[in-house]
């Protein structure tokens, strides 16, 4: 009897040890120092991250909704703000201008960053020439612009260097024609802008791309645009909320 009890206690202990070990396996994982964490730990951390995401989704707290914008609120902002929407992902952000410069090619370059600086867009006279931090980014572009005139200045070749998912660079050459669709008044958050609608119709890489620009040539600004950022990102919608 006593022996039998001893055995079952042993078995119980072994089972408890097994459970403890399983818990240890599930929880183990930490690292300190300048070395990168070991492979298994990086995997474990990623798994933890996605479990957290699933849990948040289950609790219904995922994906913050876009806050309602009012002109009154925007009027309190004193720096230029650009709103970008990645249409394919239905993802959006407010961008702030961090760099203005020119180089040997025509046009004025502006770089716009998200608040955490993790994503940047670069525009040349308002035409998208590079993205960073989105994945499958547009590395660089050759666009047809001339100094002092917002938006594309003419049709012709529009070259995009795409960073592919295998990290190689692929050149995508689009041949475009520029169509002037005339004056158009648009509204951006309770404010109306008189603009000129330019449409760039491009073909290349086995498909078709249409970029739209609503420009104000006198103010030298593009109030709104919808531009294609390459096959991995698709179309981006840009709105200038604060001049």
């Amino acid at each position: 009897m006593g022996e039998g009890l001893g055995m079952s206690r042993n078995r119980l202990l072994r089972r408890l040890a097994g459970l403890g070990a399983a818990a240890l396996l599930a929880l183990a994982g930490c690292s300190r120092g300048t070395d990168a964490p070991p492979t298994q730990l990086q995997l474990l951390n990623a798994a933890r991250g996605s479990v957290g995401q699933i849990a948040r989704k289950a609790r219904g707290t995922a994906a913050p909704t876009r806050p309602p914008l009012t002109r009154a609120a925007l009027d309190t902002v004193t720096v230029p703000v650009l709103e970008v929407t990645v249409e394919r992902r239905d993802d959006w952000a407010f961008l702030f201008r961090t760099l203005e410069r020119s180089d040997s090619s025509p046009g004025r370059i502006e770089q716009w960053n998200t608040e955490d600086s993790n994503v940047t867009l670069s525009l040349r006279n308002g035409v998208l020439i590079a993205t960073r931090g989105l994945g499958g980014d547009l590395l660089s572009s050759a666009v047809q612009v001339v100094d002092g005139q917002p938006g594309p200045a003419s049709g012709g070749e529009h070259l995009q260097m795409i960073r592919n998912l295998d990290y190689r660079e692929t050149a995508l050459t689009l041949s475009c024609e520029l169509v002037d669709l005339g004056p158009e008044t648009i509204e951006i958050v309770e404010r109306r802008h008189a603009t000129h609608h330019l449409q760039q119709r491009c073909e290349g890489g086995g498909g078709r791309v249409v970029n739209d620009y609503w420009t104000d040539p006198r103010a030298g600004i593009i109030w709104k645009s919808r531009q294609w950022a390459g096959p991995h990102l698709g179309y981006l919608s840009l709105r200038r909320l604060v001049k």
Partner: protein
Amino acid sequence: MSQPILRCRRSGAALLRAAAAAVVLAGAVATQGISQNLAEDGALPPDIGSEEPSFTPLPATSLNFYGSPGGIDMPSAEMLPDGTFATTLSGFGGQNRITLTFQATPWMSGSFRYHQMRNLNLFGFKTYYDRSFDVRFRLWREGRYRPQVALGLQDFSGTGLFGAEYIVASKSFRTPAWGGLARDGGRLMLTGGVGWGRLGSYNSIGSLGRRPTYSGATSRGGEPSYDQWFRGPYALFGGLEWRPNDKLGLKLEYSSDTYVTETQTTSSFTRRSPFNFGVEYQWKPATRLGAYYLYGSEIGLSAQIQLNPRHPVTRLAVPAPYPVQPREQWAGPPESWDTAWVDSGETLQGLRARLAETLKRDGLVLESLEVGAETAELRYRNPRYTAQAAAVGRAARALAATMPASVETFRLVPVSDGMALSAVILRRSDLEALEFDPRSSAALLAVAGFADAAGKPGPTAMAGPGLYPDFSWSVVQYASPSYFDPSLPFRLDLGVDLRATYRPAPGWRISGKLRQRVWGNIKDGRLSNSVLAHVRTDATLYAQEATTLENLYVARQWRPGRNLYARLSLGYFEAMYGGLSGEILWKPVGSRLGLGLEGNYVIQRDYDQRFGFQDYDVFTGHASAYLDLGKGYAAQVDVGRYLAGDVGATFSIDRTFANGWSFGGFFSQTNVSAADFGEGSFDKGLRFRIPLSSLLGKPSRAGLGLVIRPVQRDGGQRVHVPGRLYDQVREAHRSGLEAEWARVWE
């Protein structure tokens, strides 16, 4: 003339292998360009519901039960997209197969298969497990009227139980789409071929000589069974596949395999008809599922998982880098840039601190900084990015953001465990001028310099603030698998590893790993029957203890001279061996060739993997040649003495993609006879690595890798010494950096 022929015959196997390798190498270089150009013009049909240019691949070629492109049990002449890793699980009538296929070049693929036959009751096994290798070549591509033609060798070495050779032609025709969305319309594929071996066993129409029979009792397998190839009866097979849309596939085929062993010698299943039928569905972009009715009696199922390094499941998104702000914007015209700051120690230390902080945001570690009025040399560690070019770009941006305006030349020196790997020289004004250039990557490459880095930082260099002594540790779970035991093909150990690394000064490393197993069944595996010294086959004995010291060693690496790299290690290198190891490598930064020499004196460790040793010791070492063949292909030859005292050479070839995916194979020929070697006849295997960054979408240098040896024996085995030089050096040299250069501005 007769002499060479005789010689040929004697070493036929070796020659065939050499010829195959030569074909692989030549073709790899010759045809790779074509397929890349095809991919680069981006001419894929747009995605459904969109007109945009697309790089999304078309639905995958479907695979047969042997994991090769084809119908159900028969092959077709199709090839997978270049670089594809495919895993196929299939089963019918007690025949279960798992196949790994790699499309090594656009015109050649290789497969490794593990086959389970239930209720076979042959060769002393109730359930019989078999490993086999296939290789397939495309002979010519499909033209407008001409079909594509391929030649395949199935189970060309090993036991030959599944041995078959075939020449097959396939032609595709466009059809109207039906029943769903079709990016490229409907497609009908017609296939017909002639097969030998298994594929010549039903309704043969002729015979070419006599095919030597396979004997399960005497054959050790492993060597190419070239005496069987295209011998004996041959028969015709054929089939058709209709893919009316992107998801669905319907298959019909006529099989020329009678399954003699399975249905006549024993009765695993009954074969009533040569016709097979199937329906397949693309469930996920990478996964295709199929259900089939085979041989008039059996239901079959398959799952085909195809991963392509060019189109990883998760896309990598890296936080955007700092912009390079032109100096004119913040420092005025160049005439006004002063250099008096060079004499202020305080300023220099401030620069170092700011730079270290800036690098840290990007995951880089400052090893040392030497600044003059016009040049800065930064030595840094890159624990984060697979691509050294990405680290180069980030480091250059960090320098541009922190250095005074007069500093014009940046020398960027990536360092691995204290050893300088190369120097990338960039002019700051080029960075400023080219950041928004239409072709910024190519433009920067054209003006970048690549040079050998000095062994040590200069006399005025400042070390990374508070870096040495440097201590890192981690506790993390591990899983250690073991494959192909005939009684249980998959075994596993699970537990926790404690690792610690202490670096007292640059170039020195003291490292150890303690392992605690929590659960596992590798210890119940089979014992060695090797007639050689048991240098690798005692894995079961080594798995008996739960707490083991995996390694504990001191290593020093340094640069003994120009283009030279050296390492000396002492301690317990791995679970089975400890001792002394020295290595020297010659590899100029711009050279595609590297030459190395390694010598080791090692003693076999006790089975309990504490501090004791057994009484087996050996001098082992190799002279190695590493050749970068371009386009991601690399070849390596090692000649020397192996652990069992055998002498010979190892040949390997690997293909690495720019994002770090790699796949390769190797084999060794030593003076151990096939009989002494045992099952498999000689050492060989496949290896692959999938970088974590393409699974997680975050930058990481870690990866999941696997070396698959069909059989682990004792011949042709090497000691695993941590920190071999070539892998540290290669990716920071010119061709390694160029391959990933698209990431330099990322």
